[in-house]
């Protein structure tokens, strides 16, 4: 049973590492609000990357303070929501991340299989 919990922790760490990249990637296609990001992440990844809302919003804020993304209050469909869009620095970081991700996945594959 212990192994299960240990593995869960490891999965959590990995997820935390890639979630920033995935959010940046989603925002590079179009601007979105927090809840939309949360739903889309979960849907596209079949729930594997589903992130708790209590974690997502602070994370968005951190990305904002690093100037990767920018949030703006806007009224759409009669509702005021904070929409996030990716900034040039965010795009640059995302590209670097993606390039490394491909390398990483290949390297890990080679080691494992």
């Amino acid at each position: 049973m212990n192994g299960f919990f240990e593995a869960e922790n490891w999965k959590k760490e990995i997820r935390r590492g890639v979630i920033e990249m995935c959010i940046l990637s989603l925002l590079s296609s179009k601007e979105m609000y927090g809840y939309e990001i949360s739903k889309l992440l979960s849907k596209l990844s079949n729930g594997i990357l589903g992130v708790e809302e209590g974690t997502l919003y602070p994370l968005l804020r951190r990305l904002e303070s690093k100037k990767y993304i920018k949030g703006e209050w806007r009224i759409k469909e009669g509702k005021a929501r904070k929409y996030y869009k990716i900034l040039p620095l965010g795009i640059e970081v995302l590209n670097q991340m993606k390039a490394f991700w491909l390398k990483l996945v290949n390297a890990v594959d080679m080691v494992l299989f």
Partner: protein
Amino acid sequence: MNEYKEALEIVEEYLDEVRKYLPIESADDIIEELRTHIIDKANEMGGLTVKNAYRIIRELGEPRELASKYVIGGEKRKLRFELGISEDIYPYFIQLVFWLTLIIVIGYTVRILRYVYSAEGLVSIAIIFFAFVDMIVSMLLTILFLYIFMSFISSNPDLKEMFYKFLRDIFGPVKTERKQRKEKIVKIEKKIEKIKEQVSKITSTSVSAVLNLFGGMIAFIAAYVIYIYGFRLPFNWLMQLLIYMMILYLLIRGSLNLANYIYISYTERRSYSFNVVKSMVSLIFVPWFVLANIFTEEIQIIILDPLIFENNDYQNLLNYIKIILLPSDYIFLAKLLTFLILIIIIVDAVIIILLKYTRTTPKKE
């Protein structure tokens, strides 16, 4: 409609609680975003109902924890300062005040008693007085320092978190925290109300606890001083009786005050019975005032010989104190005054007893 309102209230109370732990400069924005999130999600779940509100809140997590995610590593850490101690560490503030004032009072009482024992004459009265002033100033400064220090801690969420854990290890979890653990987020609305009430109660009770401690110590020391010096002066039977009465009165009042102090500190509740008993204690003086009213010409007064100012000999104060019988011109006035005081003591006690039995007893939880 009613349920929607209720659900909205739950959401707002939750957000208020989160806001307390957020950095002020970004709180509005964060809270607004969380609010839109909750409403969006609720709409998707079929509308904002009480049940949905609780579910969404539970998913967002405990207010302090949620806020800490925004603070730690998020914003740049700036040390902030605002007066006021936050609710969760307030009980510890009270405990610290309790222990520190107790230590100060014990320390100074030992000091004052040493003065009294080593004194040969009234020389030390001034020293005792200054030691008292010293004690009160030390207490006030200690409380002020503690208040400012804990306000500073309260203004900085991560510092507060650390300090909170540290205090909890020393003093153990406080009552409010134990309650919080049990009820969790599900009962937030009721809890906030309770905490607010409790804090105002604790503030007023802690003040009255400290006042009781003060009063008690002063009464004991005054009784001791009167005991030491009162009988050295050549008083007649009436005045000696008064001295006995005063010592008795001060001892009873002192014990009552200390008992009340301990009671308040441990139960965080004020006792109305103590106040009633306290006012009854003044009745001890009734027989004396009756006697004083009858034998008014026996009343003695203390005067200070004006020679002391000429000789500048304040060191030997005792030698300049003279005791004389009340001048005959004042006897009528004294009769009037003793009678009035007698009436006041009786009426005061009667009124307080009447109040005690006619008032509605305060609600107990």
